[in-house]
């Protein structure tokens, strides 16, 4: 199925936001987006669905996972945090992004897809390629982990919720 280029272009800003959240680095993020766009164009005939956004985000997420795998073979530290471009409140911005960067990749991606990109749990499950129940539990883990890092104290639920 031929993909409307304008539709793709319209998604670039949110793809960049997602990639920035995944990598923490502006340049690496744009490289990921560029890779994803290229990949999408190369296999656009494989696009069957009607959810272009989910399809593109899945391609980007795959690319990011491949990057993480190959980076693991290199002696580098985790995602870089771009300290150059602070927001209105640089301190808190760096804080949350540093905390995000320290999460496991599979937690980071589900949190970004739902909480920031606004995908439904079902769409997120499709994008990541795991059952919806796994998405829900990853989200809970991701958020508890993030809270622990932001508070600097371990979160121990007083009572197990069942």
């Amino acid at each position, binding site marked *: 199925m031929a993909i409307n*280029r304008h539709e*793709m*272009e319209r998604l*670039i*800003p*949110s793809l*960049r*936001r997602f990639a*920035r*959240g995944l990598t923490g680095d502006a340049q690496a*993020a*744009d*490289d990921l*987006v*560029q*890779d994803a*766009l*290229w*990949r999408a*164009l*190369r296999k656009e005939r494989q696009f069957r669905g009607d959810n272009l956004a989910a399809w593109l985000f899945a391609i980007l997420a795959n*690319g990011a996972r*491949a*990057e993480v795998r*190959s*980076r693991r*073979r*290199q002696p580098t530290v985790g995602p870089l945090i771009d300290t150059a471009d602070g*927001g209105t*409140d640089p301190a*808190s*911005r760096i*804080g*949350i*992004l540093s905390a*995000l960067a320290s999460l496991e990749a599979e937690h980071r991606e589900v*949190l*970004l897809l*739902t*909480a*920031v990109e606004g995908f*439904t*749990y079902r769409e997120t499950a499709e994008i990541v390629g795991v059952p919806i*129940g796994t998405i*829900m*539990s990853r*989200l*809970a883990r991701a*958020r*508890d982990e*993030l*809270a622990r890092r*932001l*508070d600097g104290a371990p*979160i121990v*639920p*007083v*009572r197990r*919720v*069942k």
Partner: protein
Amino acid sequence: MSEALGRPVTEEDLVALADDRLDAARSAEVEAWLGENPSERDRVAGWRRQSAMLRGALDPVAAEPAPPALVAALTPPPRSRWQWPSIAAVAAGIVGGVFAGWMIWGSAVPLQAREMVAIGLSAHQVYIQEVRHPVEVTVAEADHLTSWLSNRIDTEVAPPDLTAAGLALLGGRVVPENGWPAALLMYENAAGERFTLLIVHYREAANTAFRYTTQRDFGAVWWMDGEVGYVFSGPDDRARLLDLSRSIYDQVS
């Protein structure tokens, strides 16, 4: 704990509540349950704050206009690229050919192949000397390398694996070939000898046998396989380069 309120409250409920994705009835039930479970209430409140902080930190990125380079990624270069060389190019080719001693090839060798070999050998000599930056994209980013080069030259570039012959892939770069991008992959063996593979995508298909040519201390085996031309360069060692080229040929065709 929550029997009086209908279905038991699960962690999934809490996640969905933090995302405002419960229907009004369930939302009210879960809120009521949280009223009796302060630690869980604080947990969900913390989750909501996180989401707001994440959006606050990342939304500015989405508010930026799309960088031109990314928009350009959506319009790949025109598919057709082969043009029969102009008279000027023919003349330049002949002059260049005389200088490089390629006239021995005779007229059976297409002009574009001579240019391809010239570029392959000259890129080889320039880039193998680079100690710190022999390639633009290293093999550490193998996936990116493959998709980047493939897209730049508009044909699949899967770097051949030559580890059986003791050659490790260092990475690759784009090099200009008559105003078009071509891909240059670089390999290195344990002795520090470097080899390069130039991959050029033409529109017009041609098939040739392996041919060997030398320049100074370097040798190159080159061939055309359909629309794609290859120049494999290394130390002037005909037998070895031919052997490696066969291995490359088996993997790329």
